[in-house]
């Protein structure tokens, strides 16, 4: 009699465990299909999941972090990287990038504001590069006198083209497309730019062979040019939510077990 009751308790506990386990696991198997996710920069590199062939999506998104987890087509939505001033890998292999302008134009800032606002009349071309307090663009740069890039050493117009707001500016006052921010950043970050050209800094996806087609990540897909300090963190890369931790091994009751039982300095 006793054994039977015991068995049924065991049984119902087992059922409960299996059910609750199911609930926990569900998170890992991507039942919640996330359609809008981001690549590297949480605000600044959006991508929409869609099928490029039946059952074969362009990307798979994480239901935990909403970051991209997998590329079905590494070249989806890319354009040729365009000419670069310095001979490097891209002169041999096929190099493509995802254009930045569609993102910058998400609120029609690019198409409308560069023409209708920064046309030299409505907003006059500034006479000097002296930093001043700006009333506009507080969503992008909350305090223009405290730009979180360059520690007081640089100003909007070291990057943005005073004559043509639809472009960035190079060292000679020439225009740089928003799709090629590396040319801009390379002005001041020489060593990093060199590493980037050689595929060490930043990243590429696609084919590993040097002659193979690659998508190159441009600088602003990872760095927010208006905040490369991230407050006290002093880091050019913003924090991200992590993916789920692995399952705990059997017999390990909680996450802190390692630390509490086997302690620091163990």
């Amino acid at each position, binding site marked *: 009699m006793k054994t039977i009751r015991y068995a049924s308790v065991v049984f119902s506990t087992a059922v409960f465990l299996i059910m609750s386990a199911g609930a926990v696991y569900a998170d890992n198997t991507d039942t919640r299909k996330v359609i809008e996710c981001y690549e590297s920069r949480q605000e600044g590199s959006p991508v929409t999941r869609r099928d490029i062939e039946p059952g074969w999506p362009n990307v798979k998104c994480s239901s935990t972090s909403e970051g991209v987890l*997998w590329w079905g087509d590494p070249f989806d939505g890319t354009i040729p990287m365009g000419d670069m001033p310095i001979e490097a890998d891209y002169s041999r292999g096929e190099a493509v990038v995802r254009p930045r302008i569609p993102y910058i134009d998400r609120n029609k800032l690019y198409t409308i504001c560069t023409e209708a606002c920064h046309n030299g009349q409505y907003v006059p071309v500034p006479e000097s590069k002296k930093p001043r307090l700006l009333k506009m663009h507080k969503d992008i740069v909350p305090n223009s006198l405290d730009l979180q890039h360059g520690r007081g050493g640089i100003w909007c117009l070291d990057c943005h083209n005073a004559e043509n707001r639809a472009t960035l500016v190079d060292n000679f006052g020439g225009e740089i497309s928003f799709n090629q921010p590396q040319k801009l950043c390379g002005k001041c970050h020489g060593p990093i730019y060199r590493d980037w050209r050689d595929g*060490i800094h930043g990243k590429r996806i696609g084919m590993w062979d040097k002659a193979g087609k690659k998508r190159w990540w441009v600088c602003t897909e990872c760095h927010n040019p208006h905040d490369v300090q991230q407050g006290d963190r002093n880091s050019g890369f913003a924090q991200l939510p992590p993916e789920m931790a*692995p399952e*705990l091994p059997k017999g390990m009751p909680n996450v802190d077990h390692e630390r509490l039982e086997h302690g620091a300095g163990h």
Partner: protein
Amino acid sequence: MSKPKDKDGKNTGTTRRDFLRKAGYAGAAALAGSATLMANTDNPDSQATWAEWFQGNYRLMTDQEKKEAIERLEKRYSAQYGKKVTVDDAPAIDGVLFGYALNIQKCIGCRRCVKACVKENNQSRTNTEIEWIRVIRMEKGQFSLEDMDKGYPAEAGFDHGVQVGGNAYKPAGVVLEGQHYYQPKKVPEKDAFYFPIACMQCEKPPCVKVCPVRTTYRDPDGIVVIDYNWCIGCRMCIGACPYWARRFNWGEPNLPKEEMNPKTHYLGNRPRMKGVAEKCTFCIQRSRRGRYTACVEVCPVGARKFGNLLDPESEVRRILARKRVFRLKADLNTYPKFFYFID
């Protein structure tokens, strides 16, 4: 448990583990009957199972045998997962030795590589969840005045007289203090750094040395592979690996149909069975077709680099030439093809 040999050293039979177990239950005669039945059935699963009992070690199979094995598997998996599944058998590319470099300074511990790997490589999702990459969180050490008099071991009680002078240390992140199960809201955390590990694709792999059936071996492009069909589940390789890279399918793998990646390789991400070992293969189904591995592609900070070690202009070679590089447990003389570096 390799195939038994007769006096001349020829294979005599079909004694795979399943076979023995079933033989034990049913008796040889009954088995012969059911075997005939299975071989004649239309069910691609039982057809493949039956044929696999007679299948040789992948390395010893003729091209024809490989072709047949692959056709069987494609049929079986396509039926099982309800979509067209391909099984590649691309061999190593001439003049290519794969290498990997990971920028330990950039890694933020987000685990996207871990999950990308699972999506690409068809690991069991739940109830033994299998992940090939582990990211270990290390605490950044510090020295503090308050700890000046705290001895080591701290509360043991019998350490009087052992501790001489000041101690003052907090975990320095260099010994056994790695944490696997961290789950903060955002990474990287202050005072932590992260250390991802997976198969190091050793040049002298201890796992290959111990495998009693030689089902795991190193291909000319440096990838250590496993023929799952010959794995007997002894788990010697798991014990031998100094990098904790191998995982074991304790149960029937749990891979939902819609999650299954239909582009597979025989020695890589094809669905596994219960009782076999598995590990990272540098995404053999991708890398041998020229594509970057899934983890390289997904890393949001670009910490992961992959390429041909024999090409001086590859990313990995440039890193070896220009950056400060180390290999994990180099003292074991395993000669990993996986390098860690800092800027």
